[in-house]
């Protein structure tokens, strides 16, 4: 649904910005993993595409608020960073397929890179309510780019931090720390969010340990509702056939081992309908 929400609070979290918006309709339908598509630039803007952000948190205040986290990397996000309390924002949501949750109380490792971590806290809450043990591995390029370390420390059994420059926690990437954490806590499942390259690495580690991984992808979208066909990536279906699927409606959460991370940005030759007519082209 579309909501014109009022900005309740804005905060800067190190290198990132977080906006809390009053949007009752979205908050009450929210499940962990959902995202919102935000119109930027105000009315009469020259920026036509919505920006998609995972929902970091929902709260019951004022009938329901949603909070999302972003980094400024263009004119659209720069405009968002200038929003102040009482400004209005046009949101469509909640969108996407949320994270599936295990039926049994298992041990889960949450892996977040950069502001991708934001989506994981609501999942971790839901997992803990089901009696799951939760451990965090969070990383970023530098200390200021690791999101949510404090909150992770408060809620998780263990929290491992990594930075590429060594300014916080271990020097390296989340994928360097992950095998040790999985082995130590005897993890049953991995929940991951972050840039495509990180998800590729996390999935490779999970496959090594033969445990399932749920990965929330960050693919550029124009609409977020499944009509523009620009956010596709190659995913292997239940029938073994690779299809170019939309990360907004079939995702953004995928089973990591189903996503052909090495082929993202290409049309694999054996994908359904690939040019040149692979063996699986019908008709």
């Amino acid at each position, binding site marked *: 649904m*579309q909501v014109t929400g009022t900005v309740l609070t804005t905060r800067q979290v190190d290198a990132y910005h977080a906006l809390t918006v009053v949007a009752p309709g979205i908050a009450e339908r929210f499940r962990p993993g959902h995202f919102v598509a935000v*119109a930027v630039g105000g009315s009469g803007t020259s920026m*036509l595409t919505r920006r998609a952000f995972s929902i970091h948190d929902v709260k019951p205040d004022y009938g329901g608020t949603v909070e999302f986290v972003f980094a400024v990397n263009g004119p659209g996000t720069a405009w968002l960073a200038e929003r102040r309390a009482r400004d209005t924002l046009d949101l469509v949501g909640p969108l996407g397929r949320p994270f599936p949750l295990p039926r049994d109380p298992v041990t889960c490792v949450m892996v977040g890179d950069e502001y991708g971590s934001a989506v994981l806290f609501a999942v971790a809450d839901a997992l803990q309510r089901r009696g799951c043990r939760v451990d965090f591995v969070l990383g970023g390029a530098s200390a200021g780019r690791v999101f949510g370390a404090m909150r992770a420390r408060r809620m998780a059994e263990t929290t491992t931090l990594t930075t590429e420059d060594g300014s916080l926690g271990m020097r390296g990437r989340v994928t360097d720390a992950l095998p040790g954490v999985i082995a130590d806590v005897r993890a049953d499942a991995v929940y991951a969010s972050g840039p495509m390259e990180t998800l590729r690495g996390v999935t490779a580690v999970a496959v090594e340990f033969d445990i399932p991984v749920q990965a929330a992808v960050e693919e550029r979208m124009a609409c977020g509702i499944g009509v*523009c*066909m*620009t*956010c596709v990536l190659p995913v292997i279906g239940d029938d073994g056939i690779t299809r170019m699927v939309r990360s907004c409606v079939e995702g953004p959460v995928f089973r990591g081992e189903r996503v052909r991370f090495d082929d993202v*940005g290409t049309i694999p030759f054996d994908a359904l309908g690939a*040019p040149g007519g692979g063996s699986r082209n019908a*008709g």
Partner: protein
Amino acid sequence: MPVDMRTYLGHVELANPVVTAAGCAGSGSELAQFFDLGRIGAVTTRSITMAPRAGRPTPRMAETPSGLLNAVGLQGPGVDAFLARELPWLAQRNVRTVVSIGGGTVAEYTALARRLNDAPGVTAVEVNLSCPNIEDRGRVFARDGGASAEVIASVRAVMRYDVPVVAKLSPDTADIVSVARACVDGGADALSMINNPLGMSIDTETMLPALAAGTGGLSGPAIRPLAVRCVWQVRTALPGVPIIGMGGVLTGRDAFELILAGACVVAVGTALFHDPYACTRVLRELEELVAARGYQRLADVIGLAHRPPGAAARHRTDFEESSL
């Protein structure tokens, strides 16, 4: 007083002139979560091809000032899956459906038309002529009147008589009027314009093209003046041919502009990416605008900008009153 918004595409009556543009409404079901598809004139499908198509690699989209570059590459399930799932879904809900078709050869267009012929729920067929012609070194059909007319004539020949065939024209041609005339001579019942002109954007960070395909189709308000010009010129040359106008319609005002230029149906495309309710909003705004100008029928304002300067507009209720 409510405005009579009915309009005609050939002999087919549409309840109102607002339709979705090809490739901007997914399979229909995505937008149905937001509004009742039966409330708009018609839904235009993405261009249906014979075989499933995976489309182009990503990135497929780049935002440009007041516009959007896209190179999706006609990703779609192919005609079999379309007829098995998507068309019946629309037909069951009594949604008027304009089926867009795309092919690489005249034979492929003809085969598609033959498949659609006995399918229930096809209100009209829109022939996407901006597809590379495999038999002519990949030059798109729409560039050339002869090639376009050949496709239209073969589709018209196999399509049931009561299903209008619409030729979708591209502005990327030397003379859109001559292509339009060739299509009408070939049997097109209506014309739709404009398809996306080709554009390109280069990322100055990576110093590479922003789209994986290099070039892409430009859409959005950036191309609206181009669309108005094309509709105007074709309406001037072929005043009797119904025109579906599209290109950067965001508001009712924009739709009204195309209608004044001569379109009897207006398609909303890129606006749907920004506002899922764009079609119903454009329709409401258009109706208010027509009423505010003193008209009770949409038919009375189609092509009205073509009247000689200073000429009184006909059928205006306030004029009739002032003539006393």
